[in-house]
């Protein structure tokens, strides 16, 4: 578990998460994240050989339903919460 949390890594992770950090934020977050990750690294002390991960705390089965059409939101309702729409579609920023 070798890791060096530096400015470069922080900016890279932020970019993956679609966040642009200001100079002030970088200065503030960098030591805070270092401290937190160092603390979280203590998980490596726990022996987890042959242990299965629990993605849920209780056992859950897959839930299926019949492949039948059900009532859903109307197009008008779905579009009612945004100004960014055109011809019955959501309008987004340019793709390229």
């Amino acid at each position, binding site marked *: *578990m070798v*890791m060096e949390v530096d400015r470069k*890594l*922080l900016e890279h*992770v*932020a970019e*993956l*998460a*679609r*966040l*642009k*950090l200001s100079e002030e*934020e970088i200065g*503030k*977050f960098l030591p*805070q*994240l270092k*401290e*937190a*990750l160092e*603390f*979280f*690294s*203590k*998980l*490596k*002390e*726990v022996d*987890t050989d042959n*242990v*299965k*991960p*629990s*993605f*849920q*705390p*209780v056992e*859950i089965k*897959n*839930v299926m*339903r019949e492949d039948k059409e059900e009532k859903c*939101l109307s197009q008008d*309702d*779905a579009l*009612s*919460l*945004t*100004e*960014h729409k055109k011809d019955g579609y*959501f*309008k*987004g*920023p*340019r*793709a*390229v």
Partner: protein
Amino acid sequence: MSIHDFIKKVKNNEIDIVEHTQKVIEECKEINTEYNYFNTISEELALQQANNIQKLIKNKDKPLKNKKLLGVVISVKDGICVKDVESTAGSRILQGYKPLFDAFVIQRVKEEGGIIIGKTSQDEFGFGSFSVNIGVGYKVPKNPIDKERSCGGSSGGAAGISKKASFPHISLGESTGGSIAEPASFCDVFGLCPTYGRVSRYGLIDFGNSLDKIGPIGRTIEDVALLMDVIEGYGKNDSTSLNVKNEDYSKYLKKSIKEMKVGIIKEAFAEGVEPEVEKNVYNGIEELEEEGAKAEEISLELPIKYGLATYYMIGTSEASTNLAKYCGMRYGISEKLEGSFNEYFTRVRSKNLGDEAKRRIILGTFARMAGYRDAYYIKAMKVRTLMIQEYKKAFKKFDALVSPTVPILPPKFSEIEKLTPLQNYMMDVMLVGPNVAGLPHLNVPVGYEKNLPVGMLLIADHLQEGKLIQLGSAVEKGK
């Protein structure tokens, strides 16, 4: 007046429910100017509901007789969707979002005649323990007992109004890593976080899918049991909802606790726990013993030592994926459509998410990144397995486990300012274990020290909420 008596009076038409609701709204507005418990007061919806109930009572509508919450005011944590009422989870990125549907729990509350009064303040998306990590432009709720102190978090507004309201009222909170029991402890009220999956999460604005639980906060254990009776159950719109038989929680209120076994978690009374807190929690344990329960020490190695790291790795990982959908396009806040996809989304997110939300998104994105995923995210999921096994072993011997809810008395805002994010996270040390393991847990108020409340935490096995209510009720009676 107890909620039980209030409902009786409403049913007998002895209370003008419209007039009562108007008074409640005025009181909430008044309290809010000083304490900031509400992000939104849903005046219109509340009066509309009250008028409907009034009409049905006047027409001697028969089905009203069985309504469990008739006329009772229910406040709702902002992260739970209420149709046509702004629901933002305390974040500016969701400003203006008025859901087109009710969450499962809101459907149930409305069906039982409960009146929705408003959306309570919280840490942004639930990211905090003091309700100070609020979204950009929101106000920090204050402790109802001392305004210079925190009311806890993240369901801070819910716990605060539960203590402060003079009218019959119960609150809906939500816990991911302790956000029901912790504020309940700081505000001297009961808070019950149910088993993961016991209450459908449909309509809850996600923080961590494998961790989020909706539960009641109230002044008495009876109130908490009543709201649990209403909101429990399977919901087909939540694939993680447990399809198990419903319980009658209220019946546990009067059950004797004789011969019940309570395990005192040894590691939870170690260094870092304020002596005033420890003393009062032991008073609570004594009350349990006086009512006939047997208490004995037990050592649990994993939850206190590794719970925080496990919880924050799982919680931030899940949060970072859940929050990826907020990008200012289909709902919530939006900006002028300028620049490319990535430029637009980055601009909206950077401007409208608060500091703690950004920190957690970054932590979670890091933990899931190629090269780090096995060491952090998957590792935490494996430690969770071991933690659940350790708890399960303890529950073979004990009906419930006990610890302080929070190691310290409610701190002043001036003290909180000095904490680093990691020191902030440490406040959840008692609570992350049961939350990671999906175990039901209850805050029971046990006393006051330096004029500040202390809470005791009771933890039970999966689906054993009844035992918590039984034990909590015994402590309440003993006081």
